[in-house]
């Protein structure tokens, strides 16, 4: 492999790699704003300029491919002076409203200012200000904070495939915006906030909810479809405040769709049933389990399992069903029309897939059959994680729900035994291409919800003598 020297250290690189990436390999940070590994290199912010031997001018590391024998200094006096000056230029017109800005604590501008900027400002001119137009339900724009890195524009055209975010006017008056106050059209809009290196584009869903540094982060996987995009859940005090993409070059790169990003809301939805229910009434675990058992006892039972459950949960059901209801069928449900992986396909050119649950592939691997049409049955046990779309069970009097349901979804159920969502458990899911990934528990189960294993244990072992302990 060819080698170059960065800050005195010899580094191997692959042909075409730029100096930011090559430096990163040996732990040398070259600061930048406009560069993003998944977007076109534009070399606009000029923050990453470094000294390259034999070149009279500083070179932007983002746009300079490493070359054999190249000698680079990222921290020479000239490079440092340039970083200081770029920070000064960027802050001339920045409002410095960090105390009321949602980006504070995870802001590239703030971080780089602290590391590379000067403590003093030499400007006394009036700051440039803009009126903010609305951008629809997902993103709140504050143009005054913008540093014109154009990452959002490039994300729109290059990733989301829509040229809706643009630069209008030019020079010092350039405004990054949608036109005429139009709402953003892409259903990947949340990414605009992620890639914004300042608080110019923030998520309406997250604004003013929590300071970034108070959030505890759990690496997990999105359950929104069979793609298996990697994500982080950010919570504090057992309340999820947002989910963000976690980079995985092989699956989702740096992105999440809005559907997946905002899917978490049902976990903390006040309409979610988080206490056992008998009929329409709130109940206790022992009474609800007893009711459920009684309703299904001696009946012709069908067990329906959502493909939003983990492999481990599916396996538990495969063991449980023959013991509890000998001869009963265990069938899976999830997305109407996409009952098998053969019917699953990309739903757009970016990430989304047609199967709107995370583990259809896993269920197939375990040999569990899909629910094609409702078999004749006197009673149904529906088990689901919270995402799978419920099959029509109206008109049946003996339906028991086990898992995550809303009040309205379960209104006709004989009993509900509240279970856990993807954010409240560990487990394995298998994406459309057969990749096994782990869900990680980010919060403890909400309310009185219990893990599936625990509920099944109760079911199998609860009797009159043990009821008091439940």
């Amino acid at each position, binding site marked *: 492999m060819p080698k170059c020297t960065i800050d005195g250290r010899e580094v191997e690189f692959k042909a075409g790699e730029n100096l930011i990436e090559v430096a990163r390999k040996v732990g040398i940070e070259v600061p930048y704003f406009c560069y993003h590994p998944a977007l076109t290199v534009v070399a606009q912010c*000029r923050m990453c300029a470094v000294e390259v031997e034999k070149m009279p001018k*500083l070179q932007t590391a983002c746009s300079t491919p490493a070359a054999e024998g190249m000698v680079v200094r990222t921290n020479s006096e000239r490079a440092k002076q340039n970083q200081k000056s770029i920070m000064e230029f*960027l802050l001339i017109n920045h409002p410095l409203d960090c105390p009321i800005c949602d980006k504070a604590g995870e802001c590239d501008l703030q971080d780089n200012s602290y590391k590379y900027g000067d403590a003093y400002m030499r400007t006394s001119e009036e700051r440039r200000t803009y009126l903010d137009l609305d951008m629809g339900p997902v993103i709140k724009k504050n143009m005054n904070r913008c540093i014109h890195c154009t990452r959002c524009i490039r994300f729109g055209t290059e990733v989301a495939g829509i040229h809706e975010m643009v630069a209008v006017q030019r020079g010092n008056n350039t405004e990054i915006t949608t036109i005429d106050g139009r709402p953003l059209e892409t259903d990947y809009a949340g990414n605009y906030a992620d890639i914004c290196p300042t608080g110019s584009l923030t998520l309406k869903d997250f604004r003013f909810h929590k300071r970034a540094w108070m959030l505890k982060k759990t690496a997990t996987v999105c359950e929104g479809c069979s793609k298996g995009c990697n994500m982080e859940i950010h919570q504090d005090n057992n309340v999820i405040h947002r989910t963000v993409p976690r980079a995985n070059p092989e699956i989702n790169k740096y992105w999440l769709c809005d559907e997946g990003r905002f899917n978490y809301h049902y976990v903390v939805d006040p309409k979610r049933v988080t206490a056992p229910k008998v009929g329409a009434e709130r109940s206790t675990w022992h009474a609800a389990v007893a009711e459920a058992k009684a309703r299904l006892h001696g009946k012709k039972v069908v067990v329906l399992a959502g493909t939003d459950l983990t492999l481990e949960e599916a396996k538990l059901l495969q063991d449980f069903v023959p013991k509890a209801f000998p001869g009963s069928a265990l069938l899976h449900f999830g997305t109407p029309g996409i009952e098998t992986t053969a019917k699953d396909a990309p739903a757009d050119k970016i990430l989304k897939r047609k199967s709107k649950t995370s583990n259809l592939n896993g269920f197939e691997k375990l040999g569990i059959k899909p629910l094609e049409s409702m078999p004749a049955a006197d009673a149904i046990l529906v088990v689901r994680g919270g995402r799978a779309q419920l099959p029509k069970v109206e008109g049946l009097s003996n339906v028991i729900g086990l898992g995550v349901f809303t009040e309205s979804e379960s209104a006709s159920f004989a009993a509900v035994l509240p279970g856990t969502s993807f954010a409240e458990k560990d487990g394995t899911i298998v994406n459309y291409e057969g990749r096994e990934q782990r869900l990680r528990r980010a919060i403890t189960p909400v309310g009185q919800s219990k893990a599936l294993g625990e509920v099944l244990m109760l079911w199998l072992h609860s009797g009159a003598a043990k009821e008091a302990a439940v």
Partner: protein
Amino acid sequence: MAGQPTSFETMYVQHFNEEARPLAYYLAKMNGYEAAKKAFGMTKDAIIDEVKKASLRGRGGAGFPCGMKWGFIPKESPKPKYLVCNADESEPGTFKDRDIMRYTPHMLIEGMLIGSFAIGAKAGYIYIRGEYVREAKLLNEAIDEAYAKGYLGKNVLGSGHDFDLTVHRGAGAYICGEETGLLNSLEGKRGEPRVKPPFPAQAGAFGGPTIVNNVETLADIPSIITKGGEWFAKMGKLEKSGGTRLFSISGHVKKPGVYELPSGGYTLRQAIFDVCGGMLDDKKLKAVIPGGSSAPVLTADEIDVVLDVEPVMKIGSMLGSAAIMVIDEDTCMVKLIQRITKFYAHESCGQCTPCREGCKWMEDIIERILHGHGKMEDLDLLMSITDNINGKTLCALGDAAAGPVASFVKKFRSEFEAYIRGEKHA
């Protein structure tokens, strides 16, 4: 005896009148399209060699050797190649290309025909600044004439070479004079300069290998082919610069206008006092901007410099597009630099940080000084900002804005101080 000197051979000025425009005149009086015929009988390498021998340097401002530039174009390319003429003529003070397009458009068309053959381009564009509505129309008329007589189109003059030429109008943006900004504009985008590399010769217009040349550069080509590179080189008086150059001289002189002078053949003093007849109203000379408004200013005692690329560079300025702006003793240099800085702030495309933020910041500071709110530290601050812009921007506009400010503050500091001390008011 002021006016165009006649003591040397010229290519343009004798034809700079309305009668010269039609194809008939070009054919009859200017040996029209004979150079193209000759070129079609030469190899492509031989044409490029002839241009190299001519020491023809780009007339747009950078002064890059034209033959060398043509040599960068790959011989084989999977993508179509293009020849683009930069007729944006946006550097303030420059108005020579307008005369070529107005009076001798066929020199340009024939130059492009030869150039396209040499680099293997089948399509060419003349990117003309939007304001030149009339010149665009005249060019289109000349192009129609050329098509009608078979000097453009399929199999030109039986050479087997196809060449389509299209006039593309800009729409008011200085930055489109920068070649990659121009290419973006040609492609229907914002005229924002591109990151280089890749250079246009590798990936230019529509992704194909592209040569961008100034109007005058291309219009020089037929004469070079007809009379030989050596002849052209000898017209210049310094080693590296061949040919004559069209100087746009404006400001406080008696006879402003376009003059054709040998490269390196005249000093700035001669240009002002002999060619242009001296100072308007016989005022005293205070300063000269020698190469378009982006060139650092020269004081009255620096005008013995020879007008060519290297000599002007040696004294810290540049010849640029050979646009000389002459400034008399009554001119307020602070007001003048305010106007220049305002221009660059207005024309900054806004992509890169130092230019977008720095140009406006300088404008604001100078404006504040003019209105009596300046501080002595502001002058050091201005110098420091110019340092932070110079050489740090994506394209040359940053340097174009910083150079003049630094030179004005350095050379006319006392005028700024007078405002700061409250002795002068805007």
